[in-house]
């Protein structure tokens, strides 16, 4: 058994979100939802984090930032796209500067729907990400992978 699902630390990046999803994500840390019950910490340093949570869509300016954060994370790690924007571009999809969802740049493991995604949905997404994390840990132990 691995200890990854017991202590998932996340790093949050606000791509070009309208801030709606960000506030819902931060709501998860408040006394009402208190995700630290499950050992989740919002750590703010990609090198310490296990889960990369992105809100908002990708554009030319934040593309490199998303890639950079992703590359700095230690394996095993997972990516969660929170909200319609991060999943597909959302209502900003047709904008001249928007390229689409986060999966344009990096592989995404879990998509959380909603505009804005509700805190319950975000917590559910993170819990699903834990299974992926565990699976990646097992694969790594077998010596199977690097990153794609």
């Amino acid at each position: 058994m691995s200890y990854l699902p017991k202590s998932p630390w996340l790093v949050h990046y606000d791509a070009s979100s309208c801030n709606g999803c960000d506030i819902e994500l931060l709501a998860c840390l408040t006394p009402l939802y208190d995700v630290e019950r499950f050992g989740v910490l919002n750590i703010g340093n990609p090198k310490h984090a296990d889960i990369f949570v992105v809100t908002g869509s990708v554009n030319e300016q934040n593309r490199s930032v998303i890639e950079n954060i992703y590359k700095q994370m230690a394996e095993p790690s997972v990516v969660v796209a929170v909200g319609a924007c991060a999943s597909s571009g959302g209502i900003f999809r047709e904008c001249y500067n928007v390229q689409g969802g986060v999966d344009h740049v990096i592989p995404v493991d879990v998509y959380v729907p909603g505009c804005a995604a509700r805190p319950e949905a975000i917590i559910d997404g993170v819990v699903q990400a834990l299974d992926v994390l565990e699976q990646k840990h097992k694969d790594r132990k077998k010596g199977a992978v690097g990153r794609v």
Partner: protein
Amino acid sequence: MKESLWILFAVLYVVLAPFIGGLIAGVDRKITARMQGRYGPPLLQPFYDVFKLLQKENMAVNKHQQFYVLSFLVFVVVAGAIFFAGGDLLLSIFALTLASVFLVVAAYSTFSPYAYVGAERELLQIMAYEPMVILTIVGMYMVTKSFNVVDIAAYDGIMFLKLPAIFLGFVFILTIKLRKSPFDISMSHHAHQEIVRGLTTEFSGKELAYIEISHWYENVMLLGLVFLFFASNPILALLVVAATYFLEIFIDNANSRLKWQNVLFSSWVIAFVLGAGNIAILAMLI
């Protein structure tokens, strides 16, 4: 017989301190959460965190980094072992300072701007707390006429009554050593007030786990120093240790981080007024 008992203490420290330190950290997080109106993580969460970090990929920036981090761990353990073996208190404290310097060097060796800021601030912290630590030891020497922990612990009568101001001063700088707000300027256990992660920005996986374990060792030794003030009455001493730690958690939650100037200035004033003042009065009485 006495000798072997103290050796046993040292061995127990090396074996048990991580467990005790980790449990204290767990209680700390739980109480912190309750103070903020949250439910809080499980008691064993710090252990889960460290085990997880040990399972992560090893991502070092350069070759010497791990060596420095391991030196930090080793010297903290050595400092604590000297302390709990009843050895020389000065030697023990110097070993602890050396350990802190290794941590600073480790952060410097990564050439990351964020780690640099953290390392510089850690140096400022060392400058801030070191005078008071030395004055504490001097005070203990004046009371017991010995630098050895064995003799200091064997002092009959409660040392606190002779060194009340020094005790307060020591609790003051303990806030810096335990990395609690408002003095957690180089690195904080709460992620939300950090630019990135201060001193530990560039450490991940195993190295971060070693740093965490070292802190557990360090905390147990520092609480041991608090114990020493009341050593003739172990039950009272344990109560004081618990109360002190609770007070530190309370201070941590009731304050936000100060600027480094305030940290340095206030701890030097405290060292001068409470530390030197107490020693001066003691010298006059003797």
